[in-house]
């Protein structure tokens, strides 16, 4: 029982810090090896929260979609006119 508990603790604690090794990228067939490391001074990007369960569709979002659709329609209309010989 004690060994089991310690094993779980070790897995949990080591798993949290996994994947911290810096990636090494070898470009092409040359001998140049680039090691990319994330500078410690660069703040980590803020990850948007995924806990929201509901939201309201805003007028700005709708206007943006309308703009997107209108733009597509304009291009389609112009293309039809040109290819129809008008």
């Amino acid at each position: 029982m004690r060994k089991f508990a310690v094993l779980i603790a070790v897995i949990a604690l080591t798993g949290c810090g996994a994947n911290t090794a810096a990636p090494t990228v070898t470009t092409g067939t040359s001998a140049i090896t680039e090691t990319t490391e994330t500078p410690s001074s660069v703040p980590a990007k803020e990850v948007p929260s995924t806990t929201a369960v509901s939201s309201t569709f805003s007028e700005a979002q709708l206007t943006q979609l309308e703009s997107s659709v209108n733009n597509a329609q304009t291009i389609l209309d112009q293309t039809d006119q040109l290819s129809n010989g008008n």
Partner: protein
Amino acid sequence: MKTVETTYMRMVATLALTAVLFFVPTNADAATSVSVPANLQPRAKALCNRVPNLLMRVDNQMTRLPAGPDTVGSIAWVKEKAQQAQARNRKQAAQELNNRADVLTQKLALLPNQKAALQKVQDTCVSLGFTT
């Protein structure tokens, strides 16, 4: 003594399991729902109704424009018309048709992005409940 050891082991196990559960990623996105205010619903519905037809037109143009000279409205067809005009010494008409072929080539390059944008709108429409 044995009771103390058992209690200690239980505490370690509980802490470990808590740590595991804390770091397990959750898929909360799947539960996200978006509601459309009543005053925006007619606009949203009208917008969503336009999308299927526009997607069909994009597909038609993406098929027609790169087709051969036998397909009316293709870029090759317009270029052939330009050659015919040139052969009849109608230089201005030939120039206009060549320009038209150039613009159609540019439009063709825009179509994949427009299709992607329309598909995005369609996906939004489906998520809003305005199935198209």
